């Protein structure tokens, strides 16, 4: 069998072999031997796969054909490589984010334990007490519990570093079924308070920071003021259970405060359960839900709960979701944009197909004679068809192989683009191509080869057949070429229009007034040494507010908590209603409004007099004033905050600001002075804001000097932060523009190829017209008009398709309607302009040629 296959590639040797064998026979025997050639052929056929051999022949012949017109072939291969490559690149991303399983044992047994939260569209999180309850579930053989990856400070050998850390259950690695690359993983008992501080590091971090030094186990580093010992290294392919982030250091809950461990309201854990073999998700979910119900009913029965809070907590429920791909907030964020990008890339690929089909049509015309000859000497139509399809498959395969290279680079570029748009929260994905990516690329290549191959092949044969009867088959072929151009124009219209919508969305988002000056506003996250008593914090703030303004280049400084994210309270506004209303809360220092550049509309800002002991005061934003004090002056009115002994008097009204991002509706907000008691939990980040006159200050080493409990948590300009928040819109605008431009380029190449070919075919006609006195200018306009009609048809159909398609992307748009007239007009204008420019030059060249030359050439 193998022999027979190998014989394909040594046909000359095989011939030699057979001839010698037959020669030997003839030298021995005296009798007649029969037809030597026939026996030779038959013996040869029996020794190899004839059908495969003819395919190889076709391939060799096809390669020669492609080599004959290298320019056309290169253009075709490049279009295909770009088209297939773009699709494969986006598919690799989809694969990494949505499809690829975690590199752990039996990922199909994993179930995400999820508490859906309709209102916020998020997944909810769990508390330690509930996890303890859930660990008793019979359906699970173990739980993977994590506080989620986050940026942490650690110092090794006195050098400070910011890395991604994750606090996990001691069972984490065991339940995942991983084997350490070095050292060991956590064991039972290492998470109890007082246990030695141990850490596991990732392979990547081992490589980056320690150069794969085998002596890393036993090394120590400082984190949160404690000294941790590295006990092991995770396997190379494991980055953590959250797709999109790559963890450097894992630690246990041994340093978690007793309050966090014991309070059922501290929901910050994410849980993946490993179902026991044979346990289906449905019964497992029923068990988890029953445990959750019992747990919630029990802890909310205490009388400290208000009916509303109790109702809210009890409305929660649990579902299990397939967990083989791990936890991922990315999945929620990315699946729609990625699908959209794949659709865009698929359109580009279609355009590339139309392009190549057009090129092949033109070449098929030139080969009509050859094909006619083959048919005439007895080749069957299917045989010739097979030859032509083989050629297009060959083209597609070369394109496909190149495409995989493009895709590999392209996917990393995509991740870089998205990462840069996300700023300080970069994306870490495993883009190593796996079999799915190859199957996708191969499938796309095959489909594409058929798609652009069949039409030209059929046309070529039809043309060759009809050319036996008449000499001109041009109208027929020109029509299919024109159809392809119209289709290309249509698809390009959709892409250019889409790019226009996304670009305008981005511009609109940037154009929204924020209510404060973002440039030169620098934000620094404040962190505290763990264990810092709450009572020390005002002292730390005071020291910081005293020192920060003395830094060169700093004009004003203030503290706000939480600046990003949000904290809401149900408050009582007696003059509005006896029902509590929800407001957003911030605690700020005196200089906040001046530092931010927020206009004070009425009343006053905070002053240094607004401190502990003084009457409670509050500043509200315009939205709150409008909503709850419609028409009346809010100054002097009061708001009662929960857990405050006295109501706070409203002393000022300030302009609305969009700190939460542009797409979020402005909430009713109340600002309380930092120094009248911190009652917003520490979860909300504390941010030091400074208005700068110069470059960004480097606080990283100074924070410890300002106060020993103070830790630096990273800094960035407000403009940068806002820009990062628009990463999705930026990515979409960038990529859709890129693909729109690519589509335009491909369409222009297709058009140029077609017009050049048509002009060459019509040289005689043009020559006759010129000889009979036609003006070159009129000839050009004749051709232009012909193509204009074609492009116009494509544009009109394209507008229809665009309007239908743009409804699907409505959710990604901002400040622009999916049927925006201006964008349609601009896109159509660009398309018609580019088309006419592309057609004009070949047409002019043809009309300026010497008519006699054209006539004589026929």
């Amino acid at each position, binding site marked *: 069998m193998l022999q027979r296959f190998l014989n394909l590639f040594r046909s000359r040797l095989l011939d030699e072999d057979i001839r010698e064998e037959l020669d*030997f026979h003839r030298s021995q025997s005296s009798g007649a031997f029969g037809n030597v050639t026939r026996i030779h052929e038959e013996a040869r056929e029996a020794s190899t796969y004839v059908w495969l051999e003819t395919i190889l022949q076709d391939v060799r012949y096809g390669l020669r054909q492609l080599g004959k017109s290298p320019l056309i072939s290169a253009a075709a291969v490049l279009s295909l490589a770009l088209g297939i490559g773009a699709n494969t690149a986006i598919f690799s991303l989809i694969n990494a984010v949505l499809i690829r399983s975690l590199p752990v044992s039996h990922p199909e047994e994993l179930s995400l334990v999820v508490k859906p939260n309709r209102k916020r569209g998020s997944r909810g999180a769990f508390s330690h007490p509930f996890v303890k309850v859930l660990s008793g579930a019979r359906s699970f053989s173990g739980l993977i519990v994590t506080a989620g990856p986050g940026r942490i400070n650690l110092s090794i050998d006195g050098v400070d570093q910011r890395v991604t850390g994750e606090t996990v259950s001691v069972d984490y690695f065991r339940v995942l079924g991983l084997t350490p690359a070095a050292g060991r993983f956590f064991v039972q008992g290492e998470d109890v308070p007082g246990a030695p501080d141990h850490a596991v590091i990732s392979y990547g971090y081992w490589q980056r920071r320690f150069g794969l030094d085998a002596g890393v186990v036993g090394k120590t580093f400082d984190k949160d003021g404690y000294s941790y010992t590295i006990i092991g290294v995770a396997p190379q392919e494991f980055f953590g259970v959250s797709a999109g982030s790559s963890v450097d250091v894992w630690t246990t809950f041994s340093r978690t405060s007793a309050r966090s461990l014991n309070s059922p309201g501290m929901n910050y854990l994410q849980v993946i359960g490993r179902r026991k073999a044979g346990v289906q998700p449905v019964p497992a979910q029923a068990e988890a839900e029953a445990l959750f119900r019992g747990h919630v009913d029990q802890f909310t029965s205490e009388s400290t709960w208000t009916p509303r809070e109790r109702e809210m907590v009890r409305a929660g429920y649990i579902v299990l979701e397939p967990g083989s791909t791990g936890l991922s907030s990315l999945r929620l964020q990315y699946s729609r944009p990625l699908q959209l990008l794949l659709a865009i890339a698929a359109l580009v690929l279609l355009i590339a197909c139309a392009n190549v089909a057009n090129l092949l049509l033109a070449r098929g015309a030139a080969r009509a004679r050859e094909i006619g000859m083959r048919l005439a000497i007895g080749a069957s139509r299917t045989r010739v068809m097979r030859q032509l399809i083989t050629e297009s498959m060959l083209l597609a395969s070369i394109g496909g192989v190149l495409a995989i290279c493009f895709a590999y680079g392209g996917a990393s570029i995509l991740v870089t683009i998205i990462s840069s748009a996300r700023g300080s929260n970069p994306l870490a994905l495993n883009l190593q191509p796996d079999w799915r990516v190859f199957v996708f690329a191969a499938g796309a290549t095959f489909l594409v080869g058929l798609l652009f191959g069949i039409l030209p092949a059929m046309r070529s044969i039809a043309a060759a057949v009809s050319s036996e009867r008449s000499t001109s088959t041009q109208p027929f072929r020109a029509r299919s070429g024109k159809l392809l151009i119209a289709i290309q124009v249509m698809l390009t219209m959709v892409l250019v229009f889409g790019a226009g919508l996304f670009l305008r969305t981005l511009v609109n988002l940037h154009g929204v007034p924020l209510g404060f000056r973002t440039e030169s506003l620098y934000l620094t996250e404040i962190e505290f040494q763990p264990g810092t008593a709450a009572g020390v914090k005002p002292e730390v703030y005071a020291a910081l507010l005293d020192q920060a303004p003395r830094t060169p280049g700093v004009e004003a400084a203030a503290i706000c908590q939480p600046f990003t994210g949000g904290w809401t309270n149900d408050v009582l506004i007696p003059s509005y209603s006896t029902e509590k209303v929800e407001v957003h809360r911030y605690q700020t220092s005196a200089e906040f409004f001046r530092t931010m550049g927020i206009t004070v509309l009425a009343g006053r800002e905070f002053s240094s007099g607004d401190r502990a002991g003084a009457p409670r005061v509050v500043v509200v934003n315009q939205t709150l004033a409008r909503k709850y004090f419609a028409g009346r002056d809010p100054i002097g009115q009061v708001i009662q905050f929960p857990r405050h002994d006295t109501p706070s008097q409203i002393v000022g009204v300030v302009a609305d600001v969009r700190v939460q991002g542009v797409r979020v509706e402005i909430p009713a907000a109340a600002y309380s002075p930092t120094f009248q008691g911190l009652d917003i939990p520490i979860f909300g980040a504390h941010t030091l804001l400074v208005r700068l006159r110069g470059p960004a200050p480097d606080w990283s080493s100074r924070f410890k000097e300002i106060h020993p409990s103070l830790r630096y948590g990273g800094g960035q300009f407000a403009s940068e932060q806002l820009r990062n928040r628009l990463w999705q819109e930026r990515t979409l605008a960038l990529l859709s523009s890129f693909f729109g431009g690519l589509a335009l380029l491909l369409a222009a190449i297709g058009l140029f190829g077609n017009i050049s070919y048509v002009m060459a075919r019509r040289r005689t006609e043009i020559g006759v017209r010129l000889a009979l006195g036609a003006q070159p200018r009129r000839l050009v306009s004749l051709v232009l008009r012909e193509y204009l009609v074609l492009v116009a048809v494509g544009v009109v159909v394209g507008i229809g398709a665009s309007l239908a398609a743009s409804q699907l992307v409505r959710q990604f748009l901002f400040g622009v309607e999916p049927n925006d007239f201006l964008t349609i007009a601009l896109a159509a204008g660009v398309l018609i302009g580019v088309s006419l420019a592309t057609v004009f030059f070949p047409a002019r060249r043809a009309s300026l040629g010497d008519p006699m030359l054209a006539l004589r050439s026929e």
Partner: protein
Amino acid sequence: MPRDTLHGTLDLLVLKTLARGPEHGYGITCQVLNLSNEQLRVEEGSLYPALRRMEAEGLIRAEWKMSENSRRARYYSLTAAGHKRLAKEVASWRDHAAAVAEFLSLT
């Protein structure tokens, strides 16, 4: 006058011949002629394609060796699969021949 081999028996004759020992193509035709008392003859036109086919099927294997008169010849020999096939073919031929004989003896 020797008869040309019956359709379908060529493989059987070749396998049987090679079961006696390695042989080249010409040798196979001679052996079949001699052993059948000149009753059976394999035709070169069918033999060589058949040898190549059986080689591809793995029933026989080929090797270039020196022949008795010191010329290079392609010697074929049976593989294990070839031995198995021969046994099967022989049995099936016997059944077939018996059936035909019985049929012809009907009065």
